[in-house]
Structure formats: C-alpha cells, structure tokens
C-alpha cells in the first residue's frame, strides 16, 4: 500500500463534488459587511434565523465530509511513518483509536444528515482538511490535524450542540455532545504527543506550532470561526481548556481567528469592488 497519499487521489463516488480553497475564496459574493466601517451583524448559527435549518444542514454535511477526511488522515498517520523515534508505536495506537472514533463519527454524521433531510454529496466537499494531514513530519500532522483541525471540530460541535438544544432537536444535541467528547480527547492526544516528541527539540516544536497557526488561520477562512458574533461558529474556550490548550494558546487562536475575519472582510470588499468596476467598464 502506497505511502503519503495525495489529496486528488482520495476515493469518492459520483455523489461527491469538490471545490478548492481558491475557488471558495474567489467567490466575489459576500454575506459580510463590505467595509471595516460598516456595522457588524450577528451571523452566528441560531434557531431564530429564518435560514437556520438549511444552514445547520449545510454545516452538518461539512462535518460529515470532515469526518471522512479525518478518518483518512488518522489512518494515513498509522501507515505513512516507520515505527520508531519519529512515530512511536504508542502514537500509532492513538491514531488507530482516533481512526476508529472518526469512522464512528462518519456513521453518526450520515445518520444525522439523513435525519435533517440531507443527501450525501448534496453540498460541495472542501478537502483542505486532508491537505493538512499530508505533512511528511508526524509532529506537524499532530499540530495541524489534532490541534488545529480537531480544535476547530470542538468549536463546530459546540455550536451544533447548542443549536440542537435551543431547537429542541433531541438527536442532534445528543450526538454532537458525544462526538464533542471524542474531539476533546483527540486534541489532548495531539497536545500530549506534540510536547513529548519535541521535548528536546525546540526548533521542531516551534516549526510545528507555526504550522498549527497556519492551519488555524486557514480553517478560520472567511472568518467562519471566531469570538465575534459575525462568525458563524464561536470559539469553545472551556472545551479547548479541557483538551490541553493553555489560556495563552486559546487567546492566540482567538486573535488569529479575528485577524482572519477582518482579512476576509477586506478581501471580499476588494474582490467585490473589482467586480463592480469590471461591470462598470463593460457598461461604458
């Protein structure tokens, strides 16, 4: 079986379609304020929104494809590295356990999607999650996948769980709560292994944390997750603490997410203005 599997070769059936990060970011349409001066408004997922259920369905589908990719990523980490100093057997056992958890999450997400009236492949799949799991250094994978990505999963599951509770959906709230507990464990495993494997190698640790920041920022793309109400998903501070993040690390993710939101507002405004200018030139 081949090692270091490229993202474009991931196996999917005809129901799935993919979009690259570039395609998503180059959509000139915007749901956000068009300039830093415009008043901010709440975009947080809540049952009070008229589009709440369709937004929750779309997010649930995003969780489903995320779980598929997380399963693929954890499985690859068990296989891609030779057992030894870089990837001790105990680390691989943790990754195997995570793959088992993710497989269960895929099944749960499928059933939740069905419950909410969503078909598999109804929405575009963004494969950026698996891309973060393609590093050739297992420590970078732990930082990028377990700390950044699974950290985002904590934020997303907390938002979905709260939505389920407010809406009175007994299955959604229950399932998200159980999956959330697994995600906290996955992040904790990442934090513990990252510290253990880089104990005597500060340079490697710094490199891993830098990679985590890059992935964190990437996953906050468009300002989807931040502590601002303008973001669709909030930052789950308490669960991050349980997962082994220090208060300083959580502050760092919060600041980075807010930067990402502000950058997205600026980028969208520029893209929007360029499209309007091009349109005006066409008219004249």
């Amino acid at each position, binding site marked *: 079986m081949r090692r270091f599997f490229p993202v474009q070769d991931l196996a999917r059936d005809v129901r799935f379609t993919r*979009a690259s990060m570039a395609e*998503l970011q180059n959509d000139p*349409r915007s749901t956000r304020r068009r300039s830093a001066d415009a008043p901010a408004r709440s975009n947080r997922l809540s049952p009070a929104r008229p589009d709440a*259920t369709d937004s929750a369905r779309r997010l649930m589908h995003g969780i489903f494809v995320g779980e598929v990719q997380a399963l693929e990523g954890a499985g690859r980490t068990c296989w891609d590295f030779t057992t030894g100093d870089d990837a001790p057997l105990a680390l691989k056992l943790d990754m195997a356990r995570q793959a088992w958890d993710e497989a269960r999450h895929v099944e749960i997400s499928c059933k939740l999607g069905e*419950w909410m*009236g969503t078909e598999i*492949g109804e929405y575009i799949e963004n494969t950026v999650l698996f891309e973060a799991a393609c590093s050739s250094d297992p420590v970078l994978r732990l930082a990028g996948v377990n700390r950044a990505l699974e950290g985002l999963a904590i934020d997303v599951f907390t938002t979905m769980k709260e939505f389920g509770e407010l809406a009175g959906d007994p299955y959604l709230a229950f399932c998200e709560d159980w999956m959330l507990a697994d995600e906290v464990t996955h992040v904790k495993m990442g934090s513990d292994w990252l510290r253990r494997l880089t104990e005597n190698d500060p340079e490697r640790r710094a490199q891993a944390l830098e990679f985590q920041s890059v992935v964190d920022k990437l996953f906050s793309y468009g300002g989807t997750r931040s502590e601002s109400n303008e973001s669709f998903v909030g930052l789950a501070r308490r669960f991050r603490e349980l997962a082994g993040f220090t208060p300083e690390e959580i502050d760092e993710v919060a600041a980075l997410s807010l930067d990402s939101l502000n950058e997205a507002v600026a980028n969208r405004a520029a893209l929007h203005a360029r499209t309007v200018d*091009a349109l005006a030139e066409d008219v004249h």
Partner: protein
Amino acid sequence: MAVTVTPSEFHFVKFDHADAVRVVEELLGRLGMAARDVTINIDETTPLGRSEIKGTDPITIAVESGAFENPKVLRTLLADNVANVTGRLLLRVRDRESGAFDDAPADSALTLPQLVAWEVYSNGRLGRMGYPMQRQRWLYHFRNRHGFTDAADAAFERLWETDDLSWSEISTIIATAAPVG
C-alpha cells in the same frame, strides 16, 4: 405572459438566464397562472438564499442568488431550485387571490412557524405536480418550528398531503402541534 429575470447578464454568478426564464414560464403554465406577468430580480452580490414577493401586479419577486444556486457547483444555477423557490412564492400569490386566505396575515407579519407551515403546504402540492421535493428536509424545517413531537409530525403530514386548504384550516392544523419560537 411575460417573464422578466434581472439582471439579464450575470457577473458575480454564472447563472443561465435563459434557463431561469424557461423554468418560470413552465411553472406559470402548470400552476394555471399563464396569463400573469412575472419579474424576478436576482441579487447576485450575495450567496444568501432569501426570497420574497415584492408585488402582485405584475408579480414581482426578489431573490438572493443562493436561493437558485446549485449547492454542488459553486455559483451556477440549479433549475430545480428555481422551480421550488419560485413555485412556493407563486402558490402563495395564487392562494391569497383564491379568497380562502383573506384572513392570513400579510407576508411581513407571518411568524416563522406560520410561514414554514404554508411552505410545507405549497411544497406538497409542487411535489405532486412532479417537481423534485426533499420531503425529509421540509419535515426537519417543520419540526424546528413546531416541535419534535408526534403531534407536529401529524400536522406536517396533513399539510403535505392536502391540496385545497384554507388559511383557517392551516391555522387549525398547526394549532394541533406545539409551536416553537
């Protein structure tokens, strides 16, 4: 019958203008509204999916591009979504003009539970006309607005399966469920 879709050329999305016009024309014929003029104004600058009736003579509808978008292919049109969204709004116009909905609140005064109930009633009818319909999705919408209960499911069933309800009958049906927020 004249169907006008604006803008005539899209810049933020890659919608097929002729396709949108064709779907609405076909819909008007099938709903028995072929004599009506319809204008659909698409706001292509936002990917959100809101839609509303702005006027009835001629029928004027405002939609955000996400309402007509294909969720599998970014920024492209999905004819089924044009039919579903426009179909629901046209049925609401037809219902109001039938006299059986004279006691219904104005669109702006409809609560979310009332609006979702009316949309369920419309979707059931569109589904029986042969338009593809995601029944489970609408059941989930309904449960979110009327409760995750057997009573709410029974109310949904009646709205979805019936063809000739009045507003007072819809109100009676939804009163049997437990409305949520």
